């Protein structure tokens, strides 16, 4: 239960760290988010394709951080972190899903040009 280690450098977190992976993770997530920003600023895609593109870019950035920066896996030292990340998935589905549903019923009732906003009108 209680982890009492004298030398901080023996800590699994520290042992697990790698400078190259950290820089790579950082660069990858900054790069991916910059691309998402560009995509947003350019206004070139249709609404639905745009949402999908940004969601994919966001997912990739998350992956880069989880795998490269935080090096999550199921080893003893990392287990709790991996589990806590996984526990957030239902919250993600819940909050984004319900929000999507809410807006889907809200737009036609409150916004005159919702077809335009939503593109295909899904």
């Amino acid at each position, binding site marked *: 239960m209680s982890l009492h280690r004298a030398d901080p450098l023996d800590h699994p977190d520290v042992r697990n760290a790698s400078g190259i992976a950290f820089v790579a993770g950082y660069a990858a997530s900054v790069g991916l988010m910059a691309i998402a920003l560009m995509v947003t600023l350019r206004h070139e895609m249709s609404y639905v394709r745009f949402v999908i593109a940004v969601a994919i870019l966001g997912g990739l950035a998350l992956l880069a951080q989880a795998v490269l920066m935080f090096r999550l896996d199921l080893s003893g030292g990392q287990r709790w972190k991996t589990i806590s990340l996984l526990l957030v998935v239902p919250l993600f589905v819940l909050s984004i899903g319900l*929000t999507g549903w*809410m807006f889907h019923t809200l737009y036609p*009732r409150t916004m005159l040009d919702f077809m335009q906003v939503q593109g295909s009108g899904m």
Partner: protein
Amino acid sequence: MLVHLQGAWNPWLGRLTLSQIPYHSPIVLGAFAFALLAAAPIVGLMTYYQKWGYLIREWITTLDHKKIGVMYIIIGLVMLLRGFIDGIMIRTQQLLADGPRSAAHLQAVHGYLPPFHFDQIYSSHGTIMIIFAVTVVLTGFQNIIVPLQIGARDMAFPYLNAVSLWLTAAGAALVMISLFIGDFSHAGWVGIVPLTELPYSPGVGVDYWDWALQLSSLGTTLGALNLITTIIMMRAPGMRWFRMPFFTWATLSTQTIGLTAFPVLGVALALLSCDRYLGTHFYTAGLGGNLMLYTDLFWIWGHPEVYFIILPAWGIMSEVIPTFSEKALFGYTVMVAATLSIAGLSWAVWLHHFFTMGAGPGVNLVFSVSTMLVGIPTGVKVFNWSLTLYRGRLRFETPMLWAIGALFLLLVGGLTGMMLAIPAINYTVHNSVFVVAHFHTMFLVSVFGIFAGLMYWFPKVFGFRLDERSGRRFFTFFSLGTVFVFAAMYTLGLMGMTRRLDYLYNPHWQALLIIQEFGIFLYCVSVFYFCKMIYVSIRDRAKEAHGQDVWRTSRTLEWMTLTPVPFYNFAVIPVVHGRDAWAMRRDSGLTATSPGDYEDINLPNNTIVPAMLGALAFGFGFGMVWRIWWLAGLSLLGIIGLVILRSFADDRGFTLTAATVRRMERNHEDTGIVTDHISPPVAELALFQ
């Protein structure tokens, strides 16, 4: 890229000019005089007794979870007082500005506050009470008690713990400074869109609110991380999951909510900042902005946040009620399950805050049902507390009075919540003061819980009891005040009075408003008794001093430590053999805590870095609010630089040898957290020696 603002701006002072200091407002001047009057004696006494060094060495630089907790609670109580004064001002304005014939004072047309000033007051009242008073005090309790309850020497990350504290302090300082330099937000504690957008709020008020919330929410997120890790990793041997004291369980679910929900607030505010600083259109009323998105994001955080506030209070009640019923908590396992399921459900109900926005009936139905589902575990808890009381040997000492008061308020608040959860009812009372009364009843459950905890644990932390006599008066007047203010407020809500009114158009409400003001008067009396209680207790502290276990019937591990608690908590980490570990030991006569042999104890050194990070965070916030770019930029660079520097510090901490521990334990005069003569040295002092 930056938004072009109207009005003066210069590179050195940003938007700050002399005219931003409201020295012409008699109310602000009064507040300033009050602050000076309150601060002057403290500063004077500190200087006279040469306590500044002590303050820095023992408190500002400390990484001790108990001292950090005490500082959280002090900040929270100061903010509670400030929020209370805001409350008095709101009530008084509504009393005076009632009907077309109402009198006018100062610069107002009705009452004594012009609308813009009134709006700032209710906005700061809500923000302060929720974010900087109740949340902060409860965080303080969790900081102090959880490591003690699980038999740990400190939190998992003591340094991070201090960083969280100072970030919170920086946020609180921003709110306070807005009183004297510039304005505060006038858009409510929820930040009503699009009112928070630049065209409608071109001043700095919204920015103050924004950055204060942003900083403190960062502190809360880091604190959540710390407490969760502490509970998972730092439990004493034998402290299995289902042997953990209930308050620790409550903390675990609270902080899980905190860790998952606060980032949403951070994002919601960051997008608002993008709108206000960079000219994006996330929430603007046109140009592709979606203002409903802000409301949605805000409440995705907001509803979990209200449970973040109530769960620790329920945890406190679950410690106090068994102690003063002299029996174990009824249905421990069910209580744990209920607490965890409330934490889970709290994520699925947020839309009940905007049933009236116009989503389809299916959506409202789902959220109505999920909201009512929360009532099931909550009801389970109420029954369990009642059954703990049932056939207990009840003792009505002050902590118990507050806990029972909280139980009654919970019934009223919960049932009115159920009413609000029905969309058809909600459509008629949404944005009326009925809602305001509902959530005040609920927050008062937390406040009653806080006072229960204060009376209950104060002797553990400081070594002497709080005065019973004035404590009882404090409870009596506070409870009576609650009844008068909020019974009248519920009624007014059903009579159609909407919230946030600076002028009341209906003179028929006057009688109830007078009743509310009378309630406020009772609250003021209770504040007097609170101060008296503190004064009398400190004066008579020698008389009220006591040993480990003041209440004699407490059950959990924190009561096993010496009183006041030494900075290393436990000389030897206890081994736990069952639930309610302390009660077990007491019942079998195993309360002697001095072991045969002591061990060396290693603890982190004190450090000034967290406090400096807090100061820099304040500089950053202040720079952003006034758009003083060099200040914000330098502060940010300073933060990054300090964090990097600190990561290179080879600080192996402070070792207390077994011999010293033995001496301290035998002669436990010099172990207490208030009186300690030995505590870890400040790491940075070594640089100067």
